[in-house]
């Protein structure tokens, strides 16, 4: 199936909104997607998955009382039914006093974003071949090792319309892959990791990911490392996780409204060295692009940390009303559980520096090289403290060289302390994404002066 170039939804939102009684307004999201997921483990393809879906999410405001209904029928009759369900709920909703109303379609379109029809139309056989290419390259580089991972490929077409006349669409295509190469029979087991993503399958090279994961797997037995503060060199996947939590805990609109943002009292202040510049840009060609958010607001480049200085949190319709700030185009679907995730920057790009990985290691002198993190979760959001494990390729750095693999460690550290301690940034950037195009992080490796490890594990 295809997310066709000329895709149209059969329903007419304007008719549905026109039939709603006086005082009722609304907006609707119609999302059609086609994705193929090819997992591989133990050297074989397993759990291959293909999905075609339509999701319709219609929100009604009865005055300033809001409710949402979702379904999968995008016809006008389907929209009418959802509007009736949402209206019935909205009538009993508490008042959202600062609801600013659905926005009019002001401003000119900043233009389309990159999209690949070929990527959105990949066949099951083509998707399987991408996975097989990773399997073959990893196996060639590490014969006898176990190879696991996934390829996600496909596309999504999204239309957002509202009763104020806004009616916009965007298309997103993506191929994303992760690969883990491990030797579970070793004591302790060792593993290596690689991942990458692109909006265009024609520019995506799966084979090198398999080779990189194999090369990152330790050849010798990992040694225990004493927990405590260590300097670290974080490879791209680890930086990507760190930045995602910085975005959620520091730049999410809900954290600002509810008083738990770790940057609430630091806006306009220096929080990192001047070399550290982080933007959110859903239109950049290196991201997984999207032209609009889930409320139809045009996406735009939003500085978050500008040469070390923290900028404002991002907004959606509700938080822009509550904070009395402009819309920044970061809305999530309104049906998200508990509505507590709120608007978050999800197309992050950290400016590159000029250091190679070898230079990052050399300048760090003594510390730990971390490939990625695992099971990261906030411990104390207001202080930006998160915890998690290292995984799939940690190494000891001594006298500016990698001297051997390290057993994995648990860190418990503030994202603010981490970015404030940035000493160097890598010159190579890569894009990392989840399994569906909710966003991406484009990041280099980075060196951090001190990172607190609080315990160790057995492998």
């Amino acid at each position, binding site marked *: 199936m295809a997310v066709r170039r000329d895709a149209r939804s059969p329903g007419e939102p304007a008719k549905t909104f026109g039939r709603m009684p006086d005082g009722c307004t609304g907006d609707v999201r119609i999302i059609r997607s086609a994705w193929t997921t090819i997992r591989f*483990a133990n050297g*074989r393809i*397993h759990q291959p998955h*293909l999905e075609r879906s339509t999701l319709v999410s219609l929100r009604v405001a009865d005055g300033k009382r809001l409710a949402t209904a979702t379904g999968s029928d995008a016809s006008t009759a389907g929209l009418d039914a959802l509007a009736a369900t949402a209206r019935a709920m909205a009538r009993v909703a508490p008042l959202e006093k600062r609801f600013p109303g659905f926005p009019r379609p002001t401003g000119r379109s900043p233009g389309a974003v990159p999209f690949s029809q070929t990527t959105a139309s990949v066949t099951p056989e083509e998707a399987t071949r991408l996975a097989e290419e990773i399997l073959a390259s990893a196996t060639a580089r590490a014969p006898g090792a176990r190879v696991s991972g996934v390829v996600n490929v496909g596309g999504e077409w999204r239309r957002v319309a509202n009763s104020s006349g806004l009616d916009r669409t965007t298309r997103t295509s993506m191929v994303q892959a992760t690969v883990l190469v491990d030797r579970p029979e070793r004591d302790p087991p060792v593993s290596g990791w690689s991942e990458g993503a692109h909006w265009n399958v024609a520019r995506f090279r799966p084979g090198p990911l398999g080779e990189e994961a194999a090369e990152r797997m330790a050849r010798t037995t990992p040694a225990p490392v004493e927990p405590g503060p260590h300097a670290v060199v974080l490879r791209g996947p680890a930086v990507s996780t760190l930045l995602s939590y910085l975005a959620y805990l520091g730049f999410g609109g809900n954290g600002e409204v509810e008083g738990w943002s770790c940057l609430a009292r630091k806006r306009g202040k220096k929080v990192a060295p001047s070399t550290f510049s982080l933007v959110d840009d859903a239109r950049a060609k290196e991201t997984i692009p999207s032209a609009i958010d889930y409320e139809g607001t045009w996406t735009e480049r939003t500085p978050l940390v500008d040469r070390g200085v923290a900028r404002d949190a991002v907004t959606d319709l509700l938080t822009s009303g509550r904070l009395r700030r402009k819309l920044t185009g970061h809305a999530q679907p309104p049906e998200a559980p508990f509505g507590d995730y709120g608007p978050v920057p999800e197309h992050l790009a950290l400016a590159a520096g000029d250091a190679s990985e070898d230079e990052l290691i050399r300048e760090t002198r003594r510390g730990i090289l971390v490939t990625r993190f695992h099971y990261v979760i906030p411990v104390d959001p207001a202080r930006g403290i998160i*915890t998690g494990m290292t995984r799939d390729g940690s190494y000891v750095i001594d006298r500016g060289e990698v001297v051997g693999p390290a057993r994995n460690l648990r860190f418990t550290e503030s994202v603010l302390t981490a970015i404030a301690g940035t000493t160097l940034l890598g010159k190579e950037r890569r894009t990392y994404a989840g399994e569906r195009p909710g966003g991406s992080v484009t990041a280099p490796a980075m060196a951090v002066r001190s990172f607190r490890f609080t315990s160790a594990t*057995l492998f």
Partner: protein
Amino acid sequence: MEELIRSALAAADGPGVALVEVRVVAPDRFLQIAVRDGAASALTDARRDALGVRVRTDRAYGFATTTDLRPGPVRDVARLAVRLARAAGRRAPEPLRVTDERGPDRGHYETPMKRDPFRTDPAMVVDILRSAEAALHVSREIKSALASFQAWDEQKWYASSGGASFTSRIVHVGAGLTATAVRGSNLQRRSAPSSHGGNAAQGGFEFVDGLDLIGRAPGLGQEAVDLLGAPVCPTGPTTLVLGSDQLALQVHESVGHAVELDRIFGSEAGFAGTSWVSSAQIGSLRFGSDLMNVVADATEPGGLGTFGWDDEGVAAQRTPIVDHGVLVGSLSSRESAARLGLSHSGGTARGSGGDRSPIVRMTNVNLEPGDLSLEELLSGVEDGVYLDTNRSWSIDDRRLNFQFGTEFGRRIVKGEIGPLVRNPIYSGMSPVFWGSMDALGNSSTRHLWGLTNCGKGQPIQVMHVGHAAPVARFRNVAVRGG
């Protein structure tokens, strides 16, 4: 619906196809009402109906799904599932083995309940939530408060080309409160009856009635404020008593996931991780102290992991996992059970909807109670801490090193529960921790908890699972203040 399923079964059947399974979940409905700080945080009636076709050849599975339940699109995805299975199997090094189980001829399972939450007046629910949320605001230092209600309705049709079929209607319902108090960068949360959305169970609205959200709200808000001024939890190895709520999550993370057979065999290595347990150790591995008895019970009344048949048509079972501290069982599907050499699956293969393939999931993984009352259990503590209600959780990819933060702690001095401490964190290694358990509360301390946010699989599947746990005591645990 039967006609649609027959058409999918027929479209997927063909040369080389060993089995076709069709599963439709319609409606797959989620109702949520949440009031945050006097406003509607979420009022949503969400449906995501879908049909999934899983095809097995002698070498591989293929799964395809659609939300378009018309005959044409359904036949299309059935054929795509066959193409996927063939593509996946073309380089498979060996045949795919599964246990020889047929499934029910025709079965039906339905959630027992008194008040269908989908027939409840939403205005009445909003009134309860507004009153409870308002009652959490006991102080200006309560910066945010949330009262929420959720209900899930899953009506399922399952049929296979082998002649098995069943239908079910499973209803889950839950509710909870959270008060967030802030003083400078000191943020404290108190939730009830549990964090991360409250507690949930299989049943009707009577479960929400039993939570007494309005009655417990003022005390909960006050506890959040009191925590702002409480001392930080002391640091050092100590005796730890875990409340039932936090212990349920401990069981989930360090026992339940560790005994999933797909993780043990490496099928999840690339995403969720593996396990410190090997398949050869099942039957002999010392997992914890002699007091430790764990079962996976898909028949537990009210459990979120309770059902009639799993999504491979295997009947719900009660399986011993840990017996007097020794690992004796695992969670399995037809494929993983066959790989272990078992003749029958443990019946724990579930998909989170019609659009997801069945994978090994927890059912209700329960820690069995002991024989001590809470007072008797505490009387053995000269100096320690009582922790409950999860705030943060993390564990390594082999389920060994864990760290949990809880919303609150209380000192225990000479067998008595004492004052509040804030930001408590405890950590450890799974087998060492379970080996240090020296006392278990009796059935009066046992409580059944519902977790609605267990993530696993690619694409991700968020599953509902249950855990019953009593109160328990652990010696020499690393505890600190965050």
